[in-house]
């Protein structure tokens, strides 16, 4: 049996059906107090459905979901004041300024005093407090959304794709904010398409695909337990090297930089390939051997790309 101090979120056999579509298919997981939990999956995997059921704004078809020890289908009123939510594709009132927006949301929670300036500092919006929402850039809007999710000093923060659609710089700035949350010891439930995000921020990761959790653990555990192979990358000119590798019985693929990528089980295989190239009198420009990252683990597990991204499509 679990207790609240340990597990802030407990999901058991959760299923959600939209008409004929089984969007979430009997998933179970727990989130511990104070950890950053990343829910990772491609478009349509069921991330938003799951997170919004936990946030009490969608109703599950079956299964048990407890948040802070309370049943989410029955105790919405008690749960809502204790959580903070950044919905997917967050948006706010166009003509209302950053400060006014924060004041508005803090008044909705009817809390005596919210440290609005502290929040503005935390998400680094000090120069923009008098700016109307419609004039903010995408990254600033997301940071405001995160600040709004914190107005009630929540025990659990839900962030549904906080960095989707942002450029790398803006994404990094949001990550800084999230690292700040992590330092403050907040429990954070994060959904994302981005492996780097999960690898950088998360203590625990659950990978969801087509409504099912297919792997769970810390980023390191996931790599260790699933990536029982090495990834060899060769840069060469012409098709000769590719042919040699294939003739040895491996399955090389080209990525979009015309590099040859080969999965090998052990270091001996690398030597075998290099020797074959040498014997054939062929050559290569560059070579790289490494353990796969979380992204590649994901590819291996699901056989599908995390994003509709040509980079991944080519290496499939």
């Amino acid at each position: 049996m679990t207790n609240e101090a340990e597990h802030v979120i407990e999901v058991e056999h959760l299923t959600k059906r939209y008409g004929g579509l089984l969007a979430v298919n009997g998933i179970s997981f727990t989130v511990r107090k104070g950890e950053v939990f990343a829910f990772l999956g491609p478009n349509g995997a069921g991330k938003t459905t799951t997170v919004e059921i936990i946030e009490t704004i969608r109703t599950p078809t079956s299964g048990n979901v407890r948040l802070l020890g309370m049943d989410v289908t029955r105790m919405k009123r008690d749960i809502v004041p204790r959580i903070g939510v950044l919905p997917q594709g967050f948006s706010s009132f166009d003509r209302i300024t950053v400060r006014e927006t924060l004041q508005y949301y803090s008044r909705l929670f009817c809390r005596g005093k919210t440290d609005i300036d502290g929040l503005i500092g935390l998400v680094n919006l000090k120069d923009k407090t008098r700016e109307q929402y419609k004039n903010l850039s995408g990254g600033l809007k997301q940071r405001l959304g995160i600040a709004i999710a914190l107005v009630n000093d929540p025990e659990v923060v839900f962030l549904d794709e906080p960095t989707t659609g942002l450029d790398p710089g803006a994404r990094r700035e949001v990550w800084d904010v999230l690292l700040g949350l992590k330092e403050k010891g907040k429990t954070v439930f994060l959904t994302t398409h981005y492996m780097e995000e999960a690898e950088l921020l998360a203590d625990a990761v659950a990978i969801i695909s087509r409504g099912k959790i297919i792997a769970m653990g810390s980023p390191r555990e996931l790599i260790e337990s699933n990536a029982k192979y090495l990834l060899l990358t060769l840069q060469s000119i012409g098709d000769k090297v590719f042919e040699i590798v294939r003739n040895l019985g491996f399955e090389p693929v080209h990525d979009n930089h015309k590099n040859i990528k080969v999965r090998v089980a052990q270091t001996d295989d690398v030597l075998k390939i290099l020797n074959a190239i040498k014997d054939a009198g062929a050559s290569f420009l560059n070579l790289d051997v490494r353990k796969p990252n979380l992204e590649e683990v994901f590819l291996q597990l699901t056989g599908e790309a995390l994003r509709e991204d040509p980079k991944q499509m080519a290496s499939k």
Partner: protein
Amino acid sequence: MNPRIISANLVVKLTSFHRERTTMFFTIAFPIILILVFGTIFMSQDNVSYHLCVQDLDQTISSAQSIKTLEHDGEFKITRVDPAANATQYVRDNKVNLVLVIPKGYENSLMQRTDFDNPDASVTITYIYDPSSSSVVTKMQILDAVLAGINQEMSRMPPFIRSAQRSILTRKYRFIEFFIPGIIAMSVMTLSLFSTVDSDTELRQKGIIRKLSTTPITRTDWILSGILYQFILAVISTIVMLLVSYAVFNVSLHIDAWLPAFILLDVIAFVGIGMILTRFVKEAQSAAAAANSISFPMMFLSGSFFPIELMPGFLQKFAKMLPLYYVNEGLRASMVFVDNLAALKDAAVIGVFAAVVFILGIMATKWEEGQ
């Protein structure tokens, strides 16, 4: 219901409204433009029927006296036409609908009759008129009545049948005074209906409603603040309309507690309809179209612009099924006729309607999405 949450919402809504300059302008200006345009049209119509052109070919003291009588008894404003002019041509050229011609020898015949009791002495006064004018018939009837009065007086017998007029109205009212309450009812309707539909679909599409559903605000708080906001706008807009009407048309309207009461009922009824619409129409554009299809028939058939008595019978029956009809009638009962009982009856009808629609609207409003 939480007053703090409702006031927080009001602040956001009013601030947004205040910062949306164009929306603000059109919200206030549209009814004013209607009042100015229609008011001017009705004013000039009122004037036409009280205007009379007279050509005096006799140019004597007696004929001048008779013109005075016309001016006084018929309450006409007299324009004198040059005796040398061709009256028929005058009617055509000056776009007047009637010229009354007093013939030469008027005084002469009058003296024959009054001083020498010659029953054969008479004069013929000619109306030269344009039959295509709609108000000319009324004008000729008034003239006939005035002339009959003069004839009767000359017979030196006291009249046998007299008539007395007792109006059911406490006073005479002008068409513009009939019109203003209708415009108030109509603009409060369009304001409530369209801003509810617009803002609800916008907030829904932008996901703000979804965000709000993760805060302690309840559906009731949200809807009440919407109604309060619309009511404030409606009151502001009504005040501006009344000020313009007083300043430009010098209307005389009775203002009491019925006015805010009917505005509030109007707001609740149409915010309710707006909420029901947004429940069933998801896209902002089709929601606006749906709102149009409700407001247009209401605008033209419920007697906002003209009395429904001018419409064929079946349309009148239809008008009486429209909620706006009762707001129109109620506002007129209180502002023009000062008839509290009639106002109360209308208030009861629209009140029941508002309550039903409002409850349906609350039930229709989906707070949590993607159930």
